[in-house]
């Protein structure tokens, strides 16, 4: 366990150190890569709450990621055009406001999807979450008001008090800070009474029910929290690319989030970060060597599932305590 803590600290420091060094050397692209890692890790940390701790294999978290992205895109588009939204709300370019809206909407949608999906379990749950995400994906494609299939550009990155988010390093710090806060929150949740109940539900829900704890509300709470965190990452991702499109809702995105978690190590605190770092670096390195990089990525993923169970964290820090 001690070893895992020091590996976690090393990873957190490395993620901070690399962009600082890159900034000194004037390599802006490396900072963007590090920002991408932080944002994907944040999204996967959200999913890790449901999937890793709760055992809820959601194959539809792209829905929440996309909701976050569209919250950022739509609010800033209205703020720029001055065209009021519903209730005379004028949109916003403040990240904090956008995050709040993104989290609340994703939470509400997550409540709806969760309430229906959690009536099922196992494969049904996997497929029904996938189906709900597809439903939102097709809605985003065919709804013309905000760009439809073409997506929506964000002219200027949204603002964070005291920072100039158009500078890559300062935007990175926003993403990094949010990731670290969320990892802290994840750690707190995991060791809380709620977290204990959630993990117990994953291991044996009949036993948990028999000692008087209802599994359903616990799972639903975890699912909603998980949706909200993933939406925050979506909002940041939209700001990173300054563009949102329905592809944020696509099932490839949901698949990618699951991949990040398993690559890193399911249920591990820093698993999503390890997975995201490995994934983005692989994508970058393989993409530099061959344009067929997805083919080789597939082979690597396959090898990880078949032969390296436990992911990066499993290799580095040994088996997880719980199981």
């Amino acid at each position, binding site marked *: 366990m001690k070893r895992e803590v020091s590996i976690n600290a090393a990873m957190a420091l490395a993620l901070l150190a690399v962009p600082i060094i890159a900034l000194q050397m004037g390599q802006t692209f490396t900072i963007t890569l590090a920002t991408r890692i932080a944002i994907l890790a944040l999204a996967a940390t959200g999913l890790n709450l449901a999937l890793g701790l709760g055992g809820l294999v959601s194959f539809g978290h792209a829905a929440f990621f996309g909701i976050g992205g569209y919250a950022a895109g739509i609010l800033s588009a209205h703020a720029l055009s001055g065209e009021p939204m519903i209730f005379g709300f004028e949109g916003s370019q403040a990240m904090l406001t956008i995050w709040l809206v993104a989290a609340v909407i994703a939470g509400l949608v997550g409540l709806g999807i969760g309430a229906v999906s959690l009536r099922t379990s196992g494969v049904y749950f996997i497929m029904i979450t996938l189906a709900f995400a597809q*439903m939102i994906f097709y809605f985003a494609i065919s709804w013309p008001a905000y760009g439809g299939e073409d997506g929506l550009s964000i002219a200027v990155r949204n603002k964070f008090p005291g920072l100039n988010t158009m500078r890559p390093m300062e935007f990175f710090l926003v993403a990094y800070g949010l990731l670290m806060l969320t990892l802290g929150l994840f750690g707190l949740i995991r060791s809380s009474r709620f977290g204990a109940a959630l993990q117990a539900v994953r291991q044996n829900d009949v036993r948990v029910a028999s000692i008087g704890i209802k599994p359903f509300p616990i799972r639903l709470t975890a699912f909603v929290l998980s949706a909200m965190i993933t939406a925050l990452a979506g909002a940041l991702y939209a700001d990173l690319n300054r563009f949102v499109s329905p592809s944020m809702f696509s099932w490839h995105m949901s698949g990618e989030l699951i*991949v990040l978690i398993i690559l890193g190590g399911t249920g591990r605190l820093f698993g999503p970060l390890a997975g995201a770092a490995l994934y983005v670096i692989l994508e970058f390195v393989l993409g530099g060597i061959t344009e067929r990089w997805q*083919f080789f990525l597939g082979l690597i*993923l396959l090898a990880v599932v078949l032969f390296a169970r436990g992911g990066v964290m499993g290799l580095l820090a040994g088996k997880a305590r719980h199981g």
Partner: protein
Amino acid sequence: MTFALALEQLLNGVQLGFMLFLMAAGLTLVFGVMGLINLAHGSLYMVGAFACAAVAAATGSFWLGLAASLAFAAGAGALMEVTVIRRLYSRDHLEQVLATYALILIFSEGTRWLFGSFPLYLDIPPLLQGAVSLPGGAQYPLYRLAIIATGAAVAMGLYLLISRTRLGMRIRAGESDREMIAALGVDIRTLYTLVFALGAALAGLAGAMVGAIQSVQVGMGEPVLILAFVVIIIGGIGSIKGAFVGALTVGVVDTMGRFLLPQLLTFFVSPADAKPMGAAIASMLIYLVMAFILAVKPRGLFPAQA
């Protein structure tokens, strides 16, 4: 809205339904017998379409292409089962999802490698070109009717195979208790490979037949795969009967929704708004139907006895 147009749309819905049945039958069999969730089923559909288009282009015969699609998809399925899928039966669903997701990446990029990024085109065979007059005066393409007939024949054949033959008996036995039939001396590994290849062949057949009315391209399997998931959730995972009812439901609801909703909405909003709004709601319709069915029956319409 005329009667003839509505009839045409209804037939389109039925045709989509039979297509989906070919996909869903394989998925649901593989899940029912092996307990495996296979995301790469859409890749087998793509393999069938590409095999058909390539062989038809080389030989000039659609029918040889169709035979090739069955052979290649079954072969790819068997290969997939022996090399990868076999190791996943004892794993949990999460790992199955990830491994078959990796297979999709490999198949899609591999196909792009072999055939390039441009779509291939497949012509409807001369025998099935032309149209048939429907009651009400509309013309309906013969080829689409042939798809419906093929789908119905496969459904019938599958029913007979499962309920009347020795292989079918073993498949049913494998569904209810795999240790027991292995103990009785049935070679369970070969049986699994056979079932997987059968499902793959059906997916390949579906891909080849649809290839002639749409373009044959990388990624064509994924939208169909997700619809097939909806089908087997509605029908109850593991049930062939459920897959059949679910496929026709999804096919007809989806097609008729896209056709009727924009027209219905003109009663409530302006025609300019009705079209996009109708299209947006129609694209969500089957998922709403699925959510409703699951809310009433969480294990689908025809839950397989687990």
